[in-house]
């Protein structure tokens, strides 16, 4: 029983990491709490559902296209709207992204309606020493983990990735080195949106999705980001897996209805005890 909960926690944890890593990157680099993140996850999920169910396209084609569309959306939002207020006090950026979230969420609600939708997948089950593992979950988690690791690698080894880290460390010095700050900001937000879209696609494989779930996803991203430390990719992975396992164990100990509260309680404790998150300040990659 415990093994089953641990494995479930690990599987959902990989997804959570993907869900939070974009949010964490945007927060760390741009200093924006992106209230739009939950709606971007839902948007990714719906693009995936639409591509597969309405257009009849294969899954391996739909997921990359949905991710690219989300990237373009994120780039445009940052370039056109958020870059104008990015230096303002945080209340302004937070409120602005909340306003954008209301608009996007309303649009999703209008286009796709409030009916819960899911991809009917039947990839079967793996049975591993008495622990049952649905293949769809493994697949979703693999997509999420591979993308997260890829992002980690790109941030450390590509020119653009290093520029993002440079901007995060010192905006002014980076500008003096010839890095185009508005472009890098937009790129970072675009990557955040892309990761949100990928998480949405993976979630669509596993759960029924409704537009109302954006708040839940945003809450999860908050918790994981604070647990792991801002802007840190390893932190997001650590925080995601931790939240997955803690929610599983919380369900086992206190019952289903307390699972979310356990996560938030843990976040409150971490925020007060270690304000830089568990991965600490070193995680600037």
């Amino acid at each position, binding site marked *: 029983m415990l093994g089953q909960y641990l494995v479930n926690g690990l599987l959902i944890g990989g997804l959570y990491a993907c869900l939070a890593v974009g949010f964490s990157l945007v927060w760390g680099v741009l200093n924006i709490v992106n209230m739009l993140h939950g709606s971007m996850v839902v948007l990714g999920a719906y693009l995936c559902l639409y591509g597969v169910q309405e257009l009849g396209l294969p899954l391996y084609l739909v997921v990359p296209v949905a991710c690219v569309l989300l990237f373009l959306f994120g780039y445009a939002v940052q370039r056109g709207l958020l870059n104008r207020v990015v230096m303002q006090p945080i209340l302004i950026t937070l409120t602005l992204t909340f306003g954008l979230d209301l608009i996007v969420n309303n649009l999703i609600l209008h286009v796709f309606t409030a009916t819960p939708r899911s991809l009917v997948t039947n990839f079967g089950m793996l049975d591993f020493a008495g622990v049952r593992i649905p293949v769809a979950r493994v697949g979703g988690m693999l997509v999420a983990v591979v993308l997260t690791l890829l992002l980690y690698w790109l941030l450390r080894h590509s020119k653009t990735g290093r520029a993002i880290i440079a901007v995060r460390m010192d905006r002014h010095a980076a500008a003096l080195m010839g890095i185009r700050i508005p472009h890098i900001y937009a790129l970072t937000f675009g990557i955040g949106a892309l990761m949100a879209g990928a998480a949405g696609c993976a979630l669509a494989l596993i759960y029924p999705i409704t537009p109302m779930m954006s708040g839940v996803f945003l809450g999860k991203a908050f918790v994981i980001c604070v647990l792991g430390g801002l802007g840190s990719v390893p932190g997001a992975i650590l925080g995601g897996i931790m939240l997955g396992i803690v929610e599983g164990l919380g369900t086992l100990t206190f019952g289903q209805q307390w699972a979310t509260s356990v996560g*938030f309680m843990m976040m409150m404790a971490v925020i007060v005890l270690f304000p830089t998150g568990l991965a600490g300040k070193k995680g600037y990659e």
Partner: protein
Amino acid sequence: MILDRATVFKLIFGLLLFAATASLSAVLDNYYLQVGTTLAMLCVLCWAWNLVGGYMGYPALSMISFFGVGAYADGIAQMQGLSIYAAWIAAALIGAIVALLLGLPLLRLKGHYFAVGTVASVEVLREVANNWDSLTGGAIGMNIPIQPGNPDLVGRFFFLSMLGLALGAFLITVVVDRSRFGFGLRCIRQNEQAASMVGINVFAYKVAAFVLSGAIGAAAGGIYASMVAFIEPKDAFNLIMTIEVPVMVMLGGMGTIFGPLIGGVFYVVLKEFVWAYFIDWHSGILGLIIVAVIYFLPAGVLGLSWKSMFNRWARSHRTNLSAKTIVRQVS
């Protein structure tokens, strides 16, 4: 407390406004009393938030957690057989205690971390209200004794109660604005380290502002709960409201005496209009309003420099006139 002429003028203007509104209650019908009560309630929340968010400059998103705590405190107190007034006082006290308990850890945080911590407090309190069935009734909600008497009289009673609370919040804001305490809060907003260097006990000031704000917000929640006679976690800890209140204050002007009032009235009127005509799109239009406020009114209605705008208009008008005269003279 420093009372200059402008403040005395504002005070008198505010008191006259309250007197006029209170006397209106004699002629208004029940629907308008209802709208008026909601408006007064939102203004109370705005004034309470303004103490922390406006004067102190801390992006608190926890207004609704105090509101919800007050609502539940009122409900539980009345279920225990306390009178309605005692329940309201209990609500304010418990709001202050919760604000103290939340403020002690949260006010050590800054910036985004503070904002997120306050959002988390809303979530945690809602989950507690949701799951502590024996005390709060859980997700089913809680019934509170309905006030006896005919609806008109009851409506008027709650309108005047909420208006009284709004008057209290207004007076507290005036006192804070003009006192050493408010000066300290403004110093904290400008530069916390410098404020502590000139001898302000920064942490005590921050906690005091937070507790004051929490007590006012919880009192509003208490009156609201008695009025609607039924509360559930979804209503009492509504996450949308937690953002709406700062938006209202931003609309009016942060850290000012009349900003919360103007913002609240403006926002409620706008929202009623949107609800009435675009029911399917109301959250999207609300989002558009928020975005528009940030781009076009970043300092709120009171932050616009009306005087210089008027001067510019007057000047251009005058130049036009003189240009016309010159033209006439030449021709």
